[in-house]
């Protein structure tokens, strides 16, 4: 085990205001929609109103006749040049990969699927012209429910594949040699819990809608896109369309949020790319919010059947999970892999000796699913932590005590789980103790008892969620074993400018995270330069030529190490130059506080800026030393990063109306060493809010014909600050071993932890009334129904709504 190097400087650990905020908050910056190019055409995309239909006739002629409309085409018109939407993660050898044209050619398979395009001189004309396109559909049978889709004789989403099953992926600890046999554990168990939990479908609600501009008129075809993944986008555009990779430049300018929703290469990007090439002039496409809701990929949507085997003393001996995961109608970039990211987390922080996981991906006539903040891990953590509460209830034990019986103790790290992961570090006891103290656990339990006693119409519930996650995606070797189509390394470059200023180039692609600030803090400490002297460049494949972008809480955990290594290379490269300037032997020099000094000799030394100027003039360089202080570093992690924490939630549940009000929320997270505490706190706040949203507020709903009923923010109810509690945050700090900064990821932690904390709390408030489950989101009506069914005695083993 590598010991984390203690190189704390003045900047890392400091609450720096974010340098990018002024331009992001005022909006005075380069958003994709702000880009306007000479001769640029505005695209409008006609979308299918049918969930499943054959396109029998398309005529774009009437649209072309309208004043201001320059071009129009249907899928058939560009069939040979539009490429196919790629899926880079077929999780099994026999994963079904259906054809996925960016613009539908013969058939549509979900509402909102693009069917025709108009290009006009302005946006409004394009919108008007869409209404003039003539298109006829022949309806085909629709299948929306996953279990119905797998039944014999179900309508097929892709008739040519002969099945609605995309794949079945299995992880069995006995077969893999990572643990015991679950069937045996079940046979030997003193208590077995079987539960079904439903992960409802969610819609990522990033602030900036997806937008794209393509300029085919220069040396390269340049695409600006509001994306999380400019590097991946360039690669896949090249691979899918045949345009040589070096002829494509992709730029992600400032991007207004993503949450996984922009970890995608989209049909709209491909359509705009095809349109620009076809017309030979720049095009712009900016979607409306309704289009985001309808056709941007969705998240979650799983049916989770969980079996927990335990002894009467609360020790869990095994867990078995059977999952149905809704793929939607098509496979996005990593759609099949999302539930697999969860597969490794059903053991959470616990020592479960036996584990079996089986997941089937299912096609339905719905918008495709893909990554949404947490991507597989919130789902896993939810089912696990709900089941732990249900186990505690069955045993009549305190919910925290049951967790203590099975969790990994701090002195047992590194610990290899039955899922096969080696957790490098953690201290679950410390985080839990701190959370319990901040929360006032015992006091709240007393209040809960007294409210139950008095039959208060407003009952109090206490919800626990302990979690760990695998983030810092990802060790390339493991990705290869999982059949993922790329590696997981990250890269950084440092360029010393003649004036001593520094340009840092990162392969990560921030879209609100604050990398410019955090990377500046790291580089300032490592190079001994002022924070303001560092400029962080990103998101343009011409300047940042190499990278794997931002998702999976990977940027600092992986890209941060690349940056540290690149800085170290610069420091090493400058050493002989400094020695030359100081007229001493390099071996006698040390680099302290930004200065090279002769060891043991305080006083004036030479800074990197001195060396940078010397390199620029190169009038007097030591023999054999290159005239450059620039350095690149690429880092491929050997293991994931494992942040963890304990979240506690107290809710007041109005048993008359079903209204749930969060009274207090405590989040104690251990994300290792922190570069900027304010950014970390912001990530936790946002993550917790998003997790609460799944627990209480958000759900994408289709009607029986496959129309999205929650297509606007009137019906898809995202909470605002008025609906959310004050969040008490704190941290414990168990440095990540092997990471020079000791940092773990934090981007998804809040989302992963909070959902089960809230739902456990709601159920806890109502258990004495006979309620053992409330389906998410726990709307007032669902809570009221759960209480009513329990009172009616209609409930057998849990209210299922």
């Amino acid at each position, binding site marked *: 085990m590598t010991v984390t190097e203690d190189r704390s400087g003045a900047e890392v650990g400091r609450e720096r205001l974010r340098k990018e905020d002024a331009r992001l908050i005022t909006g005075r910056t380069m958003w994709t929609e702000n880009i306007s190019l000479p001769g640029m055409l505005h695209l409008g995309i006609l979308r299918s109103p049918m969930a499943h239909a054959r396109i029998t006739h398309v005529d774009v002629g009437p649209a072309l006749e309208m004043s201001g409309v320059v071009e129009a085409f249907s899928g058939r018109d560009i069939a040979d040049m539009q490429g196919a939407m790629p899926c880079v993660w077929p999780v099994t050898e026999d994963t079904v990969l259906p054809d996925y044209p960016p613009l539908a050619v013969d058939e549509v398979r979900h509402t909102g699927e693009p069917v025709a395009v108009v290009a006009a001189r302005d946006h409004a004309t394009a919108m008007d012209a869409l*209404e003039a396109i003539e298109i006829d559909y022949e309806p085909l049978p629709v299948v929306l429910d996953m279990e119905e889709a797998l039944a014999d004789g179900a309508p097929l989403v892709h008739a040519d594949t002969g099945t609605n099953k995309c794949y079945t992926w299995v992880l069995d600890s006995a077969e893999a040699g990572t643990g015991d046999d679950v069937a045996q554990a079940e046979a030997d168990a003193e208590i077995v819990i079987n539960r079904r939990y439903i992960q409802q479908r969610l819609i990522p609600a990033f602030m900036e809608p997806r937008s794209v501009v393509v300029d085919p008129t220069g040396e390269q075809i340049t695409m600006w896109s509001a994306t999380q993944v400019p590097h991946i986008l360039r690669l896949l555009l090249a691979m899918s369309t045949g345009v040589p990779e070096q002829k494509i430049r992709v730029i992600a300018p400032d991007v207004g949020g993503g949450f996984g929703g922009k970890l995608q290469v989209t049909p709209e990007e491909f359509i705009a790319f095809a349109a620009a090439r076809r017309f030979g002039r720049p095009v712009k496409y900016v979607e409306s919010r309704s289009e985001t809701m309808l056709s941007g990929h969705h998240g979650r949507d799983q049916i989770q059947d969980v079996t927990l085997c335990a002894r009467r003393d609360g020790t869990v001996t095994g867990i078995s999970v059977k999952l149905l995961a809704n793929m939607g109608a098509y496979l996005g970039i990593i759609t099949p892999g999302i539930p697999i990211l969860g597969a490794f987390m059903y053991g959470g922080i616990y020592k479960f000796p036996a584990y079996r996981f089986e997941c089937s991906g299912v096609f339905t006539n719905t918008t495709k699913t893909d990554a949404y903040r947490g991507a597989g891990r919130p789902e896993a953590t939810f089912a696990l932590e709900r089941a732990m509460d249900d186990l505690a209830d069955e045993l009549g034990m305190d919910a925290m005590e049951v967790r203590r019986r099975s969790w990994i103790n701090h002195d047992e790290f590194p610990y290899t789980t039955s899922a096969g992961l080696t957790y490098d570090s953690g201290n679950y006891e410390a985080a839990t103790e701190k959370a319990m103290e901040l929360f006032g656990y015992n006091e709240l339990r007393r209040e809960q008892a007294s409210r139950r006693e008095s039959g208060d119409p407003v009952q109090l519930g206490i919800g626990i969620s302990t979690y760990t996650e695998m983030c810092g995606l990802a060790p390339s070797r493991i990705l290869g074993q999982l059949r993922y189509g790329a590696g997981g390394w990250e890269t950084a470059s440092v360029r010393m400018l003649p004036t001593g200023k520094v340009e840092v180039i990162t392969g990560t692609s921030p879209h609100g995270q604050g990398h410019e600030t955090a990377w500046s803090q790291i580089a300032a400490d490592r190079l001994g330069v002022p924070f303001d002297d560092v400029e962080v460049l990103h998101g343009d494949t011409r300047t940042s030529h190499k990278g794997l972008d931002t998702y999976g809480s990977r940027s600092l955990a992986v890209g941060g190490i690349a940056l540290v290594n690149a800085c170290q290379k610069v420091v090493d490269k400058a050493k002989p130059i400094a020695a030359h300037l100081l007229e001493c032997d390099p071996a006698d020099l040390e680099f302290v506080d930004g200065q090279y000094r002769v060891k043991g000799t305080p006083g004036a030394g030479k800074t990197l800026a001195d060396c940078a100027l010397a390199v620029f003039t190169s009038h007097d360089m030591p023999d054999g030393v290159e005239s450059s202080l620039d350095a690149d570093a690429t880092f491929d992690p050997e293991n994931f990063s494992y942040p963890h924490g304990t979240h506690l939630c107290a809710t007041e549940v109005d048993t008359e109306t079903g*209204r749930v009000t969060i009274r207090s929320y405590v989040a104690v997270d251990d994300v290792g060493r922190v570069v900027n505490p304010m950014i970390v706190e912001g990530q936790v706040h946002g993550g917790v809010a998003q997790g609460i949203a799944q627990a209480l507020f958000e759900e994408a709903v289709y009607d029986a014909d496959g129309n999205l009923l929650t297509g606007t923010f009137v019906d898809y*109810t*995202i909470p605002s600050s008025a609906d959310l509690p004050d969040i008490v945050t704190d941290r414990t700090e168990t440095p990540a071993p092997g990471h020079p900064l000791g940092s773990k990821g934090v981007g998804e932690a809040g989302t992963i932890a909070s959902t089960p904390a809230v739902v456990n709390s709601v159920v806890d408030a109502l258990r004495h009334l006979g309620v053992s489950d409330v389906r998410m989101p726990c709307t007032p009506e669902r809570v009221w129904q759960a209480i009513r069914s329990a009172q009616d005695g209609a409930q057998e083993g849990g209210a299922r709504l």
Partner: protein
Amino acid sequence: MIPTAFDYSRPTGVDEAVHALTDGGEDAKVLAGGQSLIPMLRLRFAAPSMLVDLGSVDEMRGVRDDGDALVIGAMTTHAEVLDDPLIRAQAPLIAQATATVADRQVRHMGTFGGSLAHADPAGDMPSVATALDATFEIAGPSGRRSVPASEFFVDYLTSALEPDEILVSVRVPKLAGWGTHYEKFNRVAQAWALVGVAVAIRRSNGTIDEARVALTNMSSTPVRAHGVEEALVGAPATDESMAAAGQHAAEGTEPTSDVSASADYRTHLATVLTRRALGTAAGI
């Protein structure tokens, strides 16, 4: 999305506005604060040929004291209503309900009259006006007329306004000595009410003399809960009588089932919320 093209007129007086509306033909629409109409235009659910923007009709703004009533200009924004001392003192029910309308941004654009003329049964102002027995002052090509709240709301998104008429102001009786309360229940803070209950109640000593109860989103129009009102007259001002009266709340209503709530749940909520609103309004 972008609305289809339309003609635009911005009159400065009521008569001029009526003229513009008449000239615009049957596809002309009045634009007040735009908080309902603009989204409908953007979604292309509505495609009027002309918009008559009342934003510069100054005589339609503000609140004035008219003896036993307040007169609220239809173009007074929710935010202005909320800040108005006359409203706070003489019509606290309106102030309290207005504070629950959507969010701050919407309240600064949306107007009191616009939310009434839109006649959305899920809106808060229609049931409040119904509970207060407000009178609607209307201008049209043939002059002015008054319509009581009980006749103003005709059906879902349909008021007694003719296509060429404009709601100029609303006359709200001062209810001196009454207790009032608006109980709103929604999914998130800025959402429409699943159900709302507007209550005005007058009591002497321990007895209730008169009660007016109107429900939001329980039918295609705001509805008076007559069963509740009748049960309360002469009843003692106690929790028990409020609860008993509340049981009548949903009588005769026709709530819808939609993606936000089922009719059953709305019916249940009406009962609970009415009991609570009555209790708060009666000060018990």
